[in-house]
């Protein structure tokens, strides 16, 4: 089946078998390997991408379902060579150890902060409850999202690039 879809703002087309999973289209066909495959059973959230702005597990969506739609992967967070403030926050707060869950945490956190610019800790923990971190790094992941919320809320220096948020 021939499909068109927009990934990180760029139009792509591909010939796909209906059974091809979205995560495999992203990684193996489009070669965007920032999106990870973790459990492959809809549990861990490492493969989280945004589908029309909402975070979903891309191991549990067929690529054909994304035709004509907008997909955002972790590669789409950086804008004009500048990391997104959420990515900066994960660095500042040591929000990752092995890094396996990080792309999923970033995509979930990014979509969450758009809807909840001033979140409570409880809301953050609720939002990331479908993303597993096996380094037990949740404390620092929560801190990172709080850090990013503060950075995004702060007045920006004139002329500074603001990334995708």
């Amino acid at each position: 089946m021939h499909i068109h879809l927009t990934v990180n703002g760029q139009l792509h087309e591909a010939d796909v078998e209906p059974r091809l999973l979205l995560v495999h289209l992203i990684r193996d066909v489009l070669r965007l390997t920032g999106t990870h495959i973790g459990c492959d059973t809809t549990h861990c959230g490492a493969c989280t991408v945004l589908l029309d702005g909402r975070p979903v597990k891309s191991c549990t969506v067929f690529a054909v379902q994304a035709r004509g739609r907008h997909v955002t992967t972790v590669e789409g967070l950086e804008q004009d060579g500048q990391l997104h403030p959420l990515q900066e926050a994960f660095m500042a707060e040591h929000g990752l150890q092995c890094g396996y869950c990080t792309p999923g945490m970033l995509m979930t956190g990014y979509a969450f902060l758009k809807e909840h610019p001033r979140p409570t800790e409880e809301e953050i923990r609720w939002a990331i409850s479908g993303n597993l971190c096996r380094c037990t790094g949740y404390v620092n992941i929560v801190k990172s999202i709080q850090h990013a919320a503060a950075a995004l809320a702060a007045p920006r220096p004139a002329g500074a690039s603001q990334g995708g948020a």
Partner: protein
Amino acid sequence: MIPAAFDYHAPTSISEAAGLLASLEDAKILSGGQSLIPLMKLRLATPRHVVDINGIPGLAYVVESAGYLRIGGLTRESHLEESPLVRERHPLLHDTCRVIADPLVRNLATVGGNLAHADPANDHPATMLALGAQVVAAGTRGERVIPVASFFTGPFATALAPDEIVVEVRVPVPPPLSGGAYLKVERKVGDFATAAVAVQLTLADRGVCERAGIGLTNVGLTPIKAERAEAALIGRRPDDKAILEAARLAAEAARPSDDLRGPAEYKRDLIRVLTARALRRALERATAGR
């Protein structure tokens, strides 16, 4: 894990979808896909045809009209969770949609799919049994309304004909002095219930229980309506004695089995404890503000 090959169909109307389902051999409906796709990846399901209904417009909504909360079959769980109408007026439903799977799954999973899949471990079935909901099914011969109490016919089996799609779920708008609650014990977020209980109560003006609905999740081969427990409450003042009696009868209605989530007796006792707690919470909500 790669699913077996299938032919993909993307109808854009209910009649087109029903026609495909009627004519294709071995077809499955793809709604949210959050149960179907994992099953296909594990090759527990290997349909020859997949009929993706997500392109049918007008099936995602949450509105109140003519005495019913009407939920479109393609409504995502996250839509239900974020609906102020559900939060303010349908607490049992609000409790339920917040504990289904996890927030990412809820962005795709649909209410219609949760019912039509008829997994006894799914959360909506018990809730809809407690609420006395109706399922609206559309097929090649038009629409019909199925009371949810006769919808679940066996494990993963429903009263739906092969060409029928769940297009709407109707929940009666609760009268004044009504309240409900869903209590679920799960090992972790995203797990199926070890056991869960849905309760919906309506009190008469003098404080007597006028209507009681009690549904049980994942303690049998189908979702269970605890009818003797319901009957024990109706016409009585829901005091501690009545609550404990109903909780005991709900536990008797459970048919749990031993598995990795625990032994049968543990689950049966969970039903007893959760029923009593859910009844107390439902009562608090029914009488809040009085």
